[in-house]
Structures are given as C-alpha cells and as structure tokens.
C-alpha cells in the first residue's frame, strides 16, 4: 500500500495515517507471514507497523523485549501483543490468526502429501528432506547466535548456559526443574541492588 500524500496539515512532524482497523490489522499480519518465509518475522513486523504509523520504534522495541520474556514462539507472541495494544483482545486474536493462516494452509497441504502416502515417502523426496534438515540445522545455529552473544555479556551467563545445556542434552533432565533451578540461581546472582 502506498501512503497517500497528505494535503494540508503538513506542519506536524508525525505523519497522519488512518488508524488501525480490524481488517487492516489482519491484512498486515498475513502480509508479514507471506514475506517472512525463512524467518525475520520481527523485522518485517516492525517495518509494516512503522510505515503505517501505527507504532513508533520505541513502542515496538518495548513490545519486542516483552515478547522475549513470555514463553512460546516469539513472532506469534509479538503479534498477539501488538494486536492487543492496537485493538484490544479481538485485535490480539486477529493478529495471531493472520500470522498463522498462510503457513498453516501451506503446512497442511505438504503434510497431507508427505504423511498420507500409503507406501511412505518416495526415496527422492526423503533424500531431499534429509538435505533440507541439514540446512535447517544451519538456520537454527544462526538463530542461536544473537542469544549466545547477549548471554556472553551477562555475568555468569556462559556458565549458566553451559550447565543448562549439559543438564538438558546430556543428562536429559526435566525442563521445568532446570528452568526453576537456573531462574533461582540467576535471580540471586542478579538481584536488584538497594542503592539504585
């Protein structure tokens, strides 16, 4: 959508744009999902919001930080938060439906094809999937890099990360127990100082 050039009232620095509507919100997140093949959803969400003038960069950064702190898939959490902020509970539901629908249709189509075959997958398709899985491992590693980088800057961060890794991957410990343990140790190590 190209923003129409504003006729009068160009004295205000903020660009006057139409306010978010339910249909507009749904369209925004369907669009984000479609351009977000291969990742980068938060970046696409940010651009879509700021070009429409529905959110400032600071407001977006706030929502993004919060999305990291809540459990679940970040991109979908972010959509729910932005929807809630712009249009309340119904907005949250529309945003989540919007960001999930294109992929859901595509994934169901492929799933029915690959899992529904009576004799299992043809060898060439299975080989292709194996190749894709290897590349997906590379994608996963790149996605982990920013988190590893931030963690490296936290006091005792690398130590706690390695302990978490060993407990989960090597000892196969229960995730909730490991989460509770790391949270308690982390909160004690980083408790707020009374001087601040």
């Amino acid at each position: 959508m190209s923003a129409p050039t504003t006729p009068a009232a160009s004295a205000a620095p903020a660009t006057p744009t139409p306010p978010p509507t339910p249909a507009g919100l749904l369209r925004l997140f369907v669009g984000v999902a479609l351009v977000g093949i291969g990742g980068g959803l938060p970046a696409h969400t940010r651009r879509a919001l700021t070009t429409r003038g529905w959110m400032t960069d600071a407001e977006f950064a706030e929502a993004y930080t919060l999305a990291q702190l809540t459990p679940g898939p970040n991109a979908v959490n972010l959509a729910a938060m932005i929807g809630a902020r712009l249009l309340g509970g119904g907005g949250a539901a529309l945003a989540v439906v919007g960001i999930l629908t294109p992929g859901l249709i595509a994934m169901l189509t492929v799933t029915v094809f690959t899992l529904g075959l009576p004799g299992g997958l043809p060898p060439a398709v299975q080989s292709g999937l194996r190749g894709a899985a290897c590349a997906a491992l590379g994608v996963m590693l790149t996605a982990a890099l920013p988190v590893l980088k931030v963690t490296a800057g936290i006091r005792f961060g690398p130590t706690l990360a390695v302990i978490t890794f060993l407990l989960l991957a090597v000892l196969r410990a229960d995730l909730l127990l490991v989460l509770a343990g790391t949270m308690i140790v982390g909160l004690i190590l980083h408790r707020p100082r009374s001087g601040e």
Partner: protein
Amino acid sequence: MTAEPLDILLTFARLGLVSFGGANLPEIERVLVEQKDWITPQLLANGFALGQVMPGPNMLAMTHYGFAAGGWLGAFAATLGFYGPTALLSAAAMTAWQRLSRWRWLPSLRSALLPFGAGVLLAGVLVLARGSIHSPAGALIAAVSFALLWRTRVNAALIVVGAAVLGAVLGL
C-alpha cells in the same frame, strides 16, 4: 497410532508454555518421541525442515507433528494448543506492561532467563543434529548453510530449498 485430540491439545499447550525464545526442541523430542511415541526422530527433523520453508513462524512444524499423531483433528489440536495459551498470555502481559516496566526485578529476570534460553538453544542444535545428520555429506551441507547464513544475506528459505535439491540429487 492415533492419539486422543484432547491429549494432543494439552501436550502441545504444555510444550508451548515451556518454550522460551522460540523452539524448545529438547523438550519436544523428549515428550513427542520418547515419552508419547507419537513421532520418530526422522519425522521430527523432517517437520522442522519443512517449517523453514513455510510462510510465517518456523514452528509450524507443530502442525506436522500433530497430524502424524492424530490426523486432521490432531493437526488442529496441536496448532491451537501450541500457539493459543502463549498468545493469550502475551496479550495479557502487554496490557500489564506499563506497571511491569518499572518493576525493579525485571532486569534481574531478563539476566536469569537469557542464559537458560541459550542453553536450551544449544541443546536444540544437538537434538536436531542427531536427527538430521547421518553422513559426512549431510554435515557438510549443514556447515555450508551455516556459513552462508552467517556471512551473507541470502534468504534462509532459499538455502533450505537448495539443500533439499542437493539432498535429492546426492541421494542422502
């Protein structure tokens, strides 16, 4: 094997709620492969790879796993379970954000949560490697993909599709 839709819904809801920073593959593997026996390690890796080339969130692999566990109803139960509760929680957290932003324990919480998230991600890389790499050629594809993504701005979906073609040609 066909699982109960309600069992699928609750199991995936729990998996969503214990995922921080996106995919929590170690727990997904532990529950879906080992505990429930709904999917195989091969299907876990396949679904994850498919998720990379789908529009939208990568963890739509959940829909794939749900279908394997319980058909159409299973696919919808898994999707609703994995995304629904966390989305609700997120919307609620947003409305409480103003009060939360002045909370003095918030930076402490962040500093405690991030190393945990990093450990989960590293364990996830190991889980995925065990499911997807069965040959030196596979390891090479993974290494080259990582190098390309790290050093260039090539779209991740293109790299995954390229690797799929390579895999089919090589007969991995």
